[in-house]
């Protein structure tokens, strides 16, 4: 039975005393997920969608059941709108390569939020260069807040696409995607939502949000690495050419041409990651059993505790909003006079895992005029003791680096 605490996660037994505060990079995996993946390979493995024998049918069922679980998890209308990818990065690239190459032309504009992860920036930057389109940035204030007015001002009649994360991996702030989607729709602009940091923490409903595309990674929400999801409105996906070409994405192939498979298989060339999809299904079951409300409640409490304690320590500066409610378990920070890599190294020496660097968001760091920062990011499986151990070390950082206080 799941306890929904650390004891569900074998990594904490294998690494005793570890305080893991890098869940925004990747989450740890509960035993239920690990066992489900193992059971797939032990008992159900065949190449899905191909084998006409019983085991092949089992594998296909396991894979397609996972798709249905994802559909339900994000409130999509149809499983035809759910494409399995490697991760959010691949999902976003798929949009750029397939939809982008077909629909973006010279003089068009793509608008990207300045806080976007490189995975939601570089595909567009590359595409715009290739097509002679213009890449524009929507800027936020220093607390990471984007306003409707700024969005309206940034949109033009040439803006084909707007890309923004639901929760930024640096600020942890929840962006008003529903409103932004409405504004984009009025302008005839499609909206791409990167839900990599939100799907693990809050309920995501693509129909309520009204987004055209949405991407997320399994590994950031308890599932194995190597499985991700692209949601796209059916008529959009229908109109798009394949992204990768190969096996199991075709209808018929002749010497001089091919017709392609139905959605979503058109976008799933080659042997799929069925073990990963099955693992993602188990992760969704685990999350659903615990409940996203409970996950949010626990994470809010831990975030508020960490935020409050960090605020009391001199020379510690939290990036983003001055309200813990706006951080969703992500606290990016600097310590005056201590380089983030030294911060991470000192935490590591105390068996505490935090991230340091530019968090794959270099344009944002230029915009904030900070070279880099450290980040602690938590999940529901952390506890108060983790936070207090983190705080205790944070208090000693400057002294350990030779400062008086």
């Amino acid at each position, binding site marked *: 039975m799941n306890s929904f605490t650390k004891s569900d996660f074998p990594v904490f037994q294998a690494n005793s005393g570890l305080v893991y505060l890098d869940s925004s990079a990747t989450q740890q995996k509960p035993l239920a997920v690990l066992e489900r993946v193992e059971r797939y390979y032990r008992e159900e493995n065949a190449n899905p969608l191909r084998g006409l024998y019983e085991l092949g049918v089992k594998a296909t069922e396991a894979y397609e059941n996972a798709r249905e679980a994802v559909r339900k998890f994000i409130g999509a209308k149809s499983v035809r709108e759910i494409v399995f990818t490697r991760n959010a990065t691949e999902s976003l690239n798929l949009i750029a390569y397939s939809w982008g190459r077909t629909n973006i032309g010279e003089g068009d504009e793509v608008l990207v939020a300045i806080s976007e992860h490189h995975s939601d920036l570089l595909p567009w930057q590359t595409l715009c260069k290739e097509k002679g389109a213009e890449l524009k940035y929507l800027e936020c204030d220093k607390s990471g807040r984007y306003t409707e007015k700024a969005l309206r001002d940034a949109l033009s009649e040439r803006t084909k696409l707007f890309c923004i994360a639901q929760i930024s991996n640096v600020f942890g702030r929840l962006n008003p995607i529903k409103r932004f989607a409405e504004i984009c729709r009025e302008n005839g602009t499609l909206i791409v939502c990167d839900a990599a940091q939100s799907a693990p923490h809050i309920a995501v409903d693509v129909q309520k949000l009204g987004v055209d595309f949405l991407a997320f990674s399994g590994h950031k929400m308890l599932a194995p690495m190597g499985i991700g999801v692209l949601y796209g409105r059916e008529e959009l996906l229908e109109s798009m050419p394949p992204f990768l070409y190969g096996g199991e994405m075709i209808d018929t192939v002749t010497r001089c041409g091919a017709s392609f498979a139905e959605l979503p298989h058109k976008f799933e060339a080659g042997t799929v990651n069925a073990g990963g999809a099955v693992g993602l299904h188990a992760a969704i079951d685990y999350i659903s059993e615990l409940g996203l409300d409970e996950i949010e409640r626990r994470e809010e409490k831990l975030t508020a505790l960490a935020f409050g304690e960090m605020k009391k320590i001199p020379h510690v500066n939290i990036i983003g909003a001055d309200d813990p409610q706006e951080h969703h378990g992500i606290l990016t920070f600097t310590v005056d*006079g*201590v*380089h*983030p*890599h*030294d911060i991470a*190294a*000192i935490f*590591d*020496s105390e068996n505490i895992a935090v991230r340091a*660097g*530019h968090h794959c968001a270099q344009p944002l760091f230029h915009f904030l005029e900070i*070279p*880099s920062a450290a980040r602690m990011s938590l999940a529901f499986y952390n506890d108060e003791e983790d936070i207090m151990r983190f705080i205790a070390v944070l208090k*000693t950082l400057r*002294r*350990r*680096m*030779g*400062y008086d206080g």
Partner: protein
Amino acid sequence: MTDNFYGEVLTDHNLHPLHKHGLPTATCCHEGVNSTCGDDIMLNLEIKDGVIVNGSFTGSGCAVSQASADIMLELVIGRTPAEARHYKALFDKMISGGITDDELEELEEAGALQNVSKMPARVKCAMLGWRTMETLLDKEEVCR
């Protein structure tokens, strides 16, 4: 454990570097970057009659990268390029964990970075200044 995480020598060179400044008399300079960390230094040397008579660095990075560059300059100023290369070789040896006690003594304060050999994630930081110096010496005709 010690309150000074990296030890006093390292934190001292980081907080109060002796050679972190511009060098108008420099005869050659080279920029070294660790792109994943964002460490970025400009190394300046003044080489006269086959001797490194002065040196400095500017830029930014973590304590390990900054202190290591400062300690390196302390060691090589007043030496020939060949001697500087010798120290670089000893430093390499220390970081890869195969240095003798005598050789360690020769490295003077740079020996304070010996612990980096146990921190694989920080090796690149410690090596930045040294790697930059070697590249600079390689490209300078007079030093070959």
